[in-house]
């Protein structure tokens, strides 16, 4: 269970998120929807531990991970995957290097690393691109590498920040289906951010609008 308890975040005196509360059950699919600048990305960053709340508390399971102005559990110990809006693929590493970095950092043995990389590349259908650098990949391939990099750690929760916003509609449709398939197969909790209402509806999860943080209703998006 993930829980935001009256969380607020200010940047230079301006509120990015104000009194936000929400609970997410394990394996649930939640879509945060709202216009640009309403604080959707901030919610993801708060949960990932990349920024600390100005007020309120955040829990992962029974463990308090962030309090007002305090990072209690660092990002690497939260067991989360994150697909950033600009993907943030490391340009100096190959696809394999991007996938392997986190495994190495966590001390995974060589055989296990090889096995997981093979498995993940096959899952996102990129076996033939393992040696390529991110700059040599198409937009769709880059998107799938970012997804694979986030999932190879077998996170309990996957955070996705407008992952399909820069893709053409056809590719976007195909990748969305891939994401849903992977979530069904692997069973992780999904917290997905988008400003696109159609995309939010197509994901068929609990929709949370950040236009008015108090208005949170399953399966409905305020107009």
């Amino acid at each position, binding site marked *: 269970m993930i829980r935001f308890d009256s969380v607020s975040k200010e*940047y230079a005196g301006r509120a990015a998120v104000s009194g936000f509360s929400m609970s997410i059950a394990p394996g649930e699919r939640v879509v945060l929807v709202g216009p640009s600048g309403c604080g959707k990305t901030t919610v993801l960053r708060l949960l990932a531990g990349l920024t600390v709340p100005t007020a309120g508390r955040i829990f992962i399971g029974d463990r308090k991970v962030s309090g007002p102005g305090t990072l209690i559990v660092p990002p690497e110990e939260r067991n989360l995957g994150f697909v*950033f809006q600009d993907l943030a693929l*490391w340009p*100096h590493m190959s696809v394999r290097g991007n996938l392997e970095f*986190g495994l190495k*950092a966590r001390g995974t043995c060589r055989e296990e690393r090889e096995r997981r990389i093979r498995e993940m590349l096959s899952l996102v259908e990129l076996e033939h691109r393992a040696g390529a650098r991110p700059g040599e990949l198409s937009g769709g391939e880059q998107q799938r590498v970012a997804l694979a990099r986030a999932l190879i750690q077998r996170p309990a929760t996957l955070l996705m920040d407008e992952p399909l916003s820069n893709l053409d509609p056809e590719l976007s449709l195909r990748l969305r289906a891939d994401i849903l398939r992977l979530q069904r197969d692997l069973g992780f909790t999904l917290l997905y951010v988008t400003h696109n209402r159609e995309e939010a509806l197509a994901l068929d999860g609990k929709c949370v609008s950040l236009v008015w943080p108090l208005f949170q209703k399953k399966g409905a998006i305020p107009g």
Partner: protein
Amino acid sequence: MNARTILLASAALALAGIGLAPVLVILARSILFEGPAGLSYYQRMWESHRVWTLLGHSAAVSGLTTLLTLAAGLPLGILLGRSDLPLRRVLTALFTIPLLVPPYILAVLWFHILGRQGLAAAWYFGLPGCVLVLWSVFLPVVVLLVMILLKTVNPRLEEAARLTTGWPGVLRGVSIPLIFPGVLLAALLVFLLSFGEFGVPMYLRYGVFPVEAFTQFSAFLDFGAAAAATLPLVMVTFGALALERVFLRDRTYILRPIAAVGGPAEIALGKARWWVFGLAGMLCLVSVVLPFAALLGSVSPASIREALARAGDSLLRSLWYAAAGATLLAVLGFLLGYLIHNRALRFWRSVDSIAVFLFALPSTVIGIGLVAMWNHPATGFVYGTPLILLFGYLAQYAALTSRITVSALAQIPRALEEAAEVAGASWLRRMGSIVTPLAWRGIAGGWMVAYIFCLRDTGISMMVYPPGHDTLPVRIFTLMANGSSELIAALCLLMCAASLVPLLVGGALLLWTRPA
């Protein structure tokens, strides 16, 4: 041809005429116009053991200085640029001070600390002393470049790594590899700057190639030998920059930060914060505070009065020439920077390469080249006046203002100038009403950097100053031979004040006018 092309091409020609031509003239004269003697200088030089000794010394000084500045500068740049180390700004400012004064002043300050007698003094005069002084002078080059480079890393790349590992892993796996080509460039710059430095080795009586060129030229008045001695310096500079172009250019990642929530994260040092602060503070104390405190301790009101009496005119001249040089450099740098940033002429890349080559070239080479080119009865209006000094400044330091202009222009969306163009504004009007007002902070910053470099210049000034026009660094250098240590300390203090006071005032003005 329109005004834009004429002005930009004129700026490029001015750089080539003022900077590159003297270097070509000196090389051509040493080979072609001195008859067989010209080539014999080279033959004599390469056959002697001395040339290899000098090359070995130069390589040892610059190699060791580069390694040590890199070893200290990289971690220090990360700590000062990205961590929550206490008093980061104060430490950054303190570490930068040695870069602002002529390097040989630092050598004098260390001499004041170590004294004339004993093991330390014996150790100081030679390779260790040269490396110690040049290390403290060029450390800020690496520190500041690492700080700037880290700011260009997209914070999301580090955050993506933060989800799986702590900061040491992020720095090792992501941040440092991403900025590494830039760090190598900083190392190359330190190597070339220390390779071309002659004031410090000369003061510490350690024979290196730039000292050889200077001695042949000014002590023995042997132009051919001096010209021949510049060739290895030109070759090393050219070779190092060629290596950079071939191996580093395509390895530099484009890492502009994206506009998104939150800037780069601060590295929390946790419990180690005060220990690390203690270490950084100690380093600062030894390399900066100690020598400058020793300087203050050696100065009395009487010695300052004497210094002003004996070198007050040189001080005033230095201030004027530095201000004039910086103003000309700001104009030339703006035009060259605009040319390079907009790729406005086909040969924009060559212009950038020439400017960088001249900056990296030892000042003795440019100095001898300027003399070779302008020392004629017909060109006395240049050679016999401060114009020759300004030419030297323009030749050596154009890369500073052009590169700073390029950075300033990169912050301005091109559409702003294009909108004015569509509205019918001429190029000059666009420059005056749109580009210059938007880039003025960068131009002002460039002016200040150029001012400091002109003011601290010793190499070019020493070689080309016309009679009665010596600058303060030159006057100090000449007085060092027979002046008392109190007088020299007072002169060094005046030099530091002349560098730091305008910088502090200008910096405060820039901060005061910083947009919210």
